[in-house]
């Protein structure tokens, strides 16, 4: 069992997402940086899809009531067991009574905590990912307790080298369905500009600071995906993230690869990014 001493902000349970309900308007959700999340799971010997705790900005403070092993991955938040600083991206032993807290991070946004065996939670529509109004119980709340599943007795993945998403400013993108409606000038601006993350970013989407002059009208509402880059009539660029709505009416000009979605999720206010176009899959006979 874990006692939540301080929930922190934006602390939630996340797995790889809620599949099979997008036709009812339910976003897929899931961990923002799935590379870091699966790494945290691998370190403690969990299946990569096991539910983890995700947090951002204000870290939580937790007291473990059992002996177990945990791992932390994602940002440069430095974990502390009782008063001792310990390492991220590494298997950590916890004794009953230990208090886990964190020292402020200089880079990255989302941090992941995995526990050997996983958390004992009730799935909502097949997933343990928090989403407001649908799965309100899947967030950390002050003074609550979290039940744990049986920890693993041995670990296969003791040596994993983390590949950080934090420093990569180049984001691989495909052309989106409406990319070809952009003028040549807009296309080259999109691919040559160094963009930066604006103050408006959350689990639903990230708005970029720089704008692209735009006369393109809205489209008839159609499906969108996490990683879709929309261009609004006023020229704003919005990168849709894991909790984004399932349909939208703004032209979909780019589509981030899975790796790029993980990368951009860790960008903070003022961090810069560039889009690097990779060829779209083609309908060719191979």
């Amino acid at each position, binding site marked *: 069992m874990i006692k939540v001493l301080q929930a922190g902000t934006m602390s939630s349970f996340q797995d790889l997402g809620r*599949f*099979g*309900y*997008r*036709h*009812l*308007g*339910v976003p897929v959700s899931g961990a923002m940086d799935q590379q870091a999340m699966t790494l945290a799971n691998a370190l403690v010997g969990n299946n990569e899809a096991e539910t983890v705790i995700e947090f951002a900005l204000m870290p939580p403070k937790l007291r473990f009531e059992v002996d177990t092993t945990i791992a932390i991955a994602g940002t440069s938040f430095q974990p502390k067991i009782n008063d001792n600083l310990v390492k991220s991206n590494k298997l950590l032993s916890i004794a009953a009574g230990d208090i886990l807290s964190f020292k402020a991070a200089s880079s990255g946004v989302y941090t992941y905590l995995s526990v050997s065996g996983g958390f004992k939670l009730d799935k*909502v*529509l097949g997933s343990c990912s928090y989403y407001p*109004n*649908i*799965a309100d119980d899947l967030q950390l709340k002050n003074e609550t307790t979290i039940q744990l599943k049986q920890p693993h007795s041995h670990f296969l993945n003791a040596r994993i080298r983390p590949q950080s998403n934090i420093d990569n400013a180049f984001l691989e993108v*495909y052309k*989106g*369905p409406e990319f070809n409606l952009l003028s040549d000038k807009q296309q080259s601006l999109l691919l040559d500009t160094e963009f930066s993350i604006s103050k408006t970013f959350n689990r639903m989407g990230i708005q970029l600071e720089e704008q692209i002059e735009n006369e393109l009208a809205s*489209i*008839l*509402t*159609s*499906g*969108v*995906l996490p*990683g879709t880059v929309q261009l609004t009539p006023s020229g704003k660029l919005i990168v849709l993230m894991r909790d984004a*709505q*399932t*349909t939208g009416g703004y032209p*979909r000009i780019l*589509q*981030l*690869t899975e790796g790029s979605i993980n990368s951009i999720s860790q960008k903070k206010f003022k961090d810069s990014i560039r889009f690097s176009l990779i060829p*779209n*899959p*083609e*309908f*060719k*006979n*191979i």
Partner: protein
Amino acid sequence: MGKFNLTFSPYGDRGILIEWPAEISDTILHDRLFFENCIQSYYIKQKIEIISAYNSLLVIYKSTINNLYSVKKQLLALYDEQSSDFIQTKIRWTIPVCYEEEFGTDLADLSANLKLSKQAVIHKHSKPIYAVHFIGFLPGFLYLGGLNEELHLARKSTPSLSVRKGSVAIGGSQTGIYPINSPGGWHIIGNSPVNWFNVTNENPCFASSGDEIKFQPITKSAYNEILERISLNEYQLEKEIIND
């Protein structure tokens, strides 16, 4: 052969976007539902997800599509095999709506803007039978086709930060019901006590694409009575099964 010349485009490396001509019509809705049905029954349910919209289907695979050519060929074959004897079974749901002032907070403004009496607005809103084109935006938010043109009114220039669950609203050429509390820019003309999304049900949203909706004006006392019956789990929506 399928009825339309569809466009197939790759969408990322896990998705295929299938598009009909960019318009809202019952012919496209019917053809799209038909194709969607074929695709769903061809694939094992777990392997794909489909986001449908007015004139599009976004087919999402769980991992990277290895051979886009063969996937497109397969989808086209399914479309062309469509037989003309497809019978769509749909349900016409009667949705109680209280248009009284307490709920229809923008009804007076909207009426004034449209130069119609409040009674006329209520009548024109509750008379048609609306087609459910698809569900999107929020869990259980129905995109409906068929709003009377006299009721079209541009969205508010500044969206409301909080629109109450059940609000029935008009935005541009569309009408809809907010299934949960949410920010929103549409004009609120009433409220329905019905629950649109319930995660404990096997099918969390009772309506599906292709169904029909009819609004029935009710008084505030009827509204409260329905709320009471919903809380006791004793309320059933009025529905009619229709075979086209």
